[in-house]
């Protein structure tokens, strides 16, 4: 006896598989499917909402020790920056002045970015050598030095996406360019009114590398 139910099921099932096979068809059959553990080893980014933050925790008290050990030689004991290495602390209320100081505290909009960057790129020359807990500790110490969290605040994967950074709303989107006067491709060609006084010469500033200084 013909089983209509079975036939119908077969048709629906095959349609489903045909459809899904179509949706996921590989056009060139190149490359291989990535294993979960392969992705896990390389997918280290942490998003502003905390997605991607690995399980771990750390506070500023522990952070001070590890910071002194692996960060302070370039960034200074208090994040003040040695030589031309970046300052990490301070600079609050400096962004609208003639000498803005862009630190993790004064400029960086997300705590997640500090974690992401330290884990992937620091210490300079020993990338991805810190443990997750050590990274949380250093981030906590930086946030503490910038007076964003308390000394005993336990920073974890669960709350790193919720830290409110002082300059969180300091960024403008979208890009407003072209932002200069539109002149429809027809700029002045003759007797234009332009400033013609020489108000500065690079030669006088005298910072051009010697070999090329004329």
């Amino acid at each position, binding site marked *: 006896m013909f089983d209509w139910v079975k036939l119908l099921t077969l048709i629906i099932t095959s349609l489903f598989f045909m459809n899904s096979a179509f949706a996921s068809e590989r*056009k060139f059959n190149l490359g291989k499917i990535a294993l979960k553990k392969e992705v896990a080893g390389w997918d280290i980014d942490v998003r502003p909402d905390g997605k991607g933050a690995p399980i771990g925790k750390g506070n500023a008290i522990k952070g001070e020790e590890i910071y002194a050990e692996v960060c302070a030689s370039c960034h200074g004991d208090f994040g003040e920056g040695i030589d031309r290495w970046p300052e990490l602390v301070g600079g609050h209320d400096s962004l609208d002045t003639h000498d803005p100081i862009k630190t993790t505290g004064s400029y960086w909009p997300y705590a997640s970015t500090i974690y992401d960057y330290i884990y992937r790129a620091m210490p300079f020359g020993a990338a991805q050598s810190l443990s997750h807990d050590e990274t949380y500790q250093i981030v906590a110490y930086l946030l503490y030095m910038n007076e964003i969290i308390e000394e005993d605040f336990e920073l974890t994967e669960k709350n790193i996406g919720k830290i409110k950074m002082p300059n969180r709303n300091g960024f403008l989107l979208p890009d407003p360019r072209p932002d200069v006067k539109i002149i429809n*491709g027809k700029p002045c060609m003759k007797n234009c009114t332009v400033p013609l006084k020489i108000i500065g010469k690079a030669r006088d500033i005298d910072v051009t590398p010697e070999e090329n200084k*004329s």
Partner: protein
Amino acid sequence: MKKYKLNNFKLNRRDLLAGTASLGAMTFASKSVLSDENKSKNLPPNLPEWTSELGEGVDANPYGMPSEFEKNVIRRNVEWLTASTESSVNFTPIQDLEGIVTPNGLCFERHHGGVSIINPKDFRLMINGLVDREMIFTLEDLKRFPQVNKFYFLECAANGGMEWRGSQLNGCQYTFGMIHNVQYTGVKLSDLILETGLKPKAKWVLAEGSDSSGMTRSIPIEKILDDCIIAWAMNGEALRSEQGYPARLIVPGWEGNMWVKWIRRLEFGDMPYMTREETSKYTDLLSDGKARMFTWVMDAKSVVTSPSPEKPILHKGIHQLRGLAWSGRGKIKRVDVSLDGGKNWKTAELHEPIMSKSLARFTFPFEWNGQELLIQSRAIDETNYVQPTIQELQKIRGVNSIYHNNSIATWLVSKTGKVDNVRLG
């Protein structure tokens, strides 16, 4: 390997250096511009030594290098700009180059954790996140995809960044040299995605490098699907290590920082990742303390490469002014040149080929009779955008921006032919 009379050659070279080689050095400008100081014995009516001797045979240089007399044409950095050379930048000697192709060894370098040296056998490109299949590709896999060959300029967003407050560096190389232009060979990301599939929620891509800075940038999906490329070759040969060997990301017309070198991973997501590079760096601080974010496109810009601070005028009479123009929004439509500080302009000759998001070469003949000149150039692209003055930019953005200074520069030619980077105001 047999070498013929190498000693003679060296002597001969020294003679030459004492004579004409100083043409390349800027000290020349202080000497009389008209005297011919070349005392070489190789000039007419004498027989040059290289004519009476055999030269080196084939394979003396299995990989050919520029002539010894061009050793002044090199990348240069500004030591005081950065704390270490591993996280630093140098500059393309655009004042010494012709046409629009930058030789591979002269393309400026910008590294954040030094140059990674990668055996191509160990290269893997991972694509993960909001795709139908998370996948891994070898370099050989990438080369089996349909390929594209495209010329594009790459400009650092900080090119000219030292000039926001005034003329600071006295060189064409140092003020405009964070740019290069090569032909890339690679695979379009829109083709790679045919292999992985794409989930409808995918709106952003995180591009990640495998170097010790783990360079990362977020790129909107529209750009990725439009014209982004994973490239493995530049100007016909494999990428140079300092340019991301064995493969890098190409983001045509957009700031160089996004062109992730030594690429290892592309993650598709539903929001930007807000990496260090796109928040604490490569954001444009305005005078009110707010900063523009995601300012990706490189606006139209041009520069006169000769005369320039490194290329003084050495002779009275006819000269060919030379320069480069480019736009991240498309093709260059026109370039104007002024010799009087922007009061009067004439349109320069543009040289074929003119390609979208590629350097364009312009020339302009002029007579010099020992008078002072204030040389400027301004580019107009196919969107009719006109390269602005620094005052126009400062009025809107202040002077703390660092990035995206595409303003018109001024070269002052003095009565001796010496050239200075100056600011008019």
